[in-house]
């Protein structure tokens, strides 16, 4: 016993007392936060893909179907873009890439809206960092994004896109859209606890964003139709910047990079500031709500 206590092995040495604080967005250690986020996302992923016969294919079918319809319509029926434009090269790949990125954004934010409320049983019964919930939703969407991007790259190589050094920008592009989605996800999931009309409102906003970004229409066409002020406004949409940079870096340099489209690289700071701002506001709103989420559900 005495030898043990000399070695510091005696268990009943009084642990340090610490105050219990109520729940918050980021309480506890980071390791637990990461493990929990990952586990929740992985579980959801597993449920989705091992729960149905076709599994992963279903997640792929949606963006592919949308792509098919849009591609047929906008290249064979309605000629929105001028096909002589060099930036229109590999239009199919550009379209598919943008759709996959947008699908990620829509999926992450759309699922985040109800996430905290739907996890009521956890929130009311366990003490854990509340931010885990929206974070796991975004992480799950990221798993899908990675899988879908692999399909896009296979499609691109099949269509004849040559590998470029700028493909290395992909992680940066993904990081930008993930940060943006995470900011919106935090904001929406916290707001939904109080305001139940956030869900239909966001569905509409999400649709608007789809058409307000270069998904179907190429940036050259947009620039040709809008005056400078409106075009500048258009490029303030972080999704527009991200999609355009993807098209430039991943598909063809014939279409301008986001910096070129804006006129200067410095101008990129504006949409970057918007992304950062949304993230900070989202985090602040979520942190503010976190302490009371369990009782307000």
């Amino acid at each position, binding site marked *: 016993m005495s030898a043990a206590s000399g070695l510091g092995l005696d268990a*009943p040495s*009084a*642990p*340090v*007392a*610490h*105050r*219990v*604080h*109520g*729940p918050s967005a980021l*309480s*506890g250690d980071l*390791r*637990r936060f990461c*493990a*929990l986020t990952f*586990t*929740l996302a992985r*579980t959801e992923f*597993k*449920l989705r893909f091992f*729960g149905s016969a076709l599994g992963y294919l279903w997640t792929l079918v949606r963006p592919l179907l949308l792509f098919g319809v849009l591609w047929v319509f906008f290249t064979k029926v309605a000629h929105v873009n001028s096909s002589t434009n060099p930036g229109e090269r590999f239009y199919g790949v550009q379209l598919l890439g943008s759709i996959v990125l947008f699908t990620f954004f829509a999926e992450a934010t759309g699922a985040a809206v109800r996430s905290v409320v739907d996890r009521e*049983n*956890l929130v*009311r*019964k*366990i*003490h*854990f960092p509340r931010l885990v919930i929206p974070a796991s939703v975004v992480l799950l969407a990221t798993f899908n994004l990675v899988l879908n991007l692999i399909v896009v790259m296979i499609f691109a190589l099949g269509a004849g896109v040559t590998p470029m050094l700028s493909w290395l920008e992909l992680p940066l592009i993904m990081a930008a859209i993930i940060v943006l989605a995470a900011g919106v996800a935090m904001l929406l999931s916290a*707001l939904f606890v*109080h*305001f*139940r*009309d*956030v869900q239909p*409102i966001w569905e509409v906003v999400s649709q608007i964003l789809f058409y307000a970004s270069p998904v179907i229409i190429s940036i050259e066409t947009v620039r040709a139709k809008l005056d400078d002020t409106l075009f500048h406004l258009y490029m303030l949409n972080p999704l527009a910047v991200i999609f355009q940079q993807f098209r430039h870096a991943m598909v063809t340099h014939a279409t301008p990079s986001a910096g070129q489209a804006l006129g200067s690289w410095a101008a990129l700071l504006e949409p970057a500031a918007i992304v950062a701002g949304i993230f900070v506001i989202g985090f602040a709103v979520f942190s503010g709500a976190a*302490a*009371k989420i*369990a*009782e307000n559900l």
Partner: protein
Amino acid sequence: MLAFRRPLASTIPRPATPELAQPAASAAVSIECVSKTFRLPHQQYSTLKERALHPFRTTEYDELHAVRDISLEIARGEFFGIVGRNGSGKSTLLKCVAGIYGVDSGRITIAGRISPFIELGVGFNADLTARDNVAINAIMLGLSRREARARFDDVIAFAELEEFVDLKLKNYSSGMLVRLAFATAIQVDTEILLIDEVLAVGDAAFQQKCFEEFFRLKREGKTIVFVTHDMYSMERFCHRAMLMERGNMVQLGDPREIGRAYHKLNFGQLPHQTAAEAASGSGTMIVEAWFEDASGKRITSAGQEERLSMCFEARLAEDLLDPVFAATLRTELGHTIIVARSDEHGGASGQFKAGESVVARFELPNWLTPSRYMLTPSLARAGTGADALALVEDMSSVVVHGQASGGILELPVDVRIERV
């Protein structure tokens, strides 16, 4: 009158009140003047649209004082019970300690790692297998993935579900589910455990196992705070207990006393009504309680298989129509053997005048196993029996002697063994 009160069960030594035996510095959980109020909006949910149209409209709230100014220290290694009726605030208090709710005023400090769980089976997903669910639960408990994997076999072995690890939970029976949940929750090696309503689980054999597990935790010196409605397990495990009512701490102390106070509360008397107030209030009182044998002789010990009567005398202070006389027979551990009621076992009791004295007798065959039994007489107005006029806990007792087979009752058995 209460001369037969002995320490609960001699096999379970109860340590001296830890609160006094140890200095305050070793408190595992210390709750200081904690209050918690919920604001319940009159409207369940508002909308952004409404907010935009009426930006200055204030929402009206009802305030619900779930926990009012509770101060309490739970020593390290103590098994502490919190009892109370539904809505008395006991779960809210537990959730405050767990950090699930923030407190409005006061402070809670804990020493040592605390289990984040307060209920069994939280976070179980019916579409996943037991294997996955146990892993997820372990991670929520704060274990790393490797630790979680290492514990998996122990959990499954404890739950006795080896054959069903890869079965989805939706195909589990409720008993299996609860076994898995208990096994998962008990794997924590945190110093402080918070448990909300657990012991009504599984079949008899598994329940026994759970009890053993509780004794093990107790021996290991873990601090356990546990909320329950089950007085039997509360009295069996807890060193100390607290009774809550409407957010207030009504009583703190010996589990047996708390168990009695709880029964009293449930029988319909107000918690803050003292015996004197009760006596002066209605004036109806139970004067005496005793046991009789078949010949009508008062006894303090009874032989098995003889007729036994539970009797008490009440003095009435008001005119009563069909009041309900009741006699509750309990074991020393607080297990209720029978609640004999005049309305159920006899019928309408008739009309009585103020000032009358009435003796109620409940005769039954004595099939009890040798032990001591306590009689709680009570008298209530006609109705459900909740509107009590008088009740005295454990007013009399009787010792039964005879053969013990190991069960709680020695029912007459006819044995027939035939060659076929």
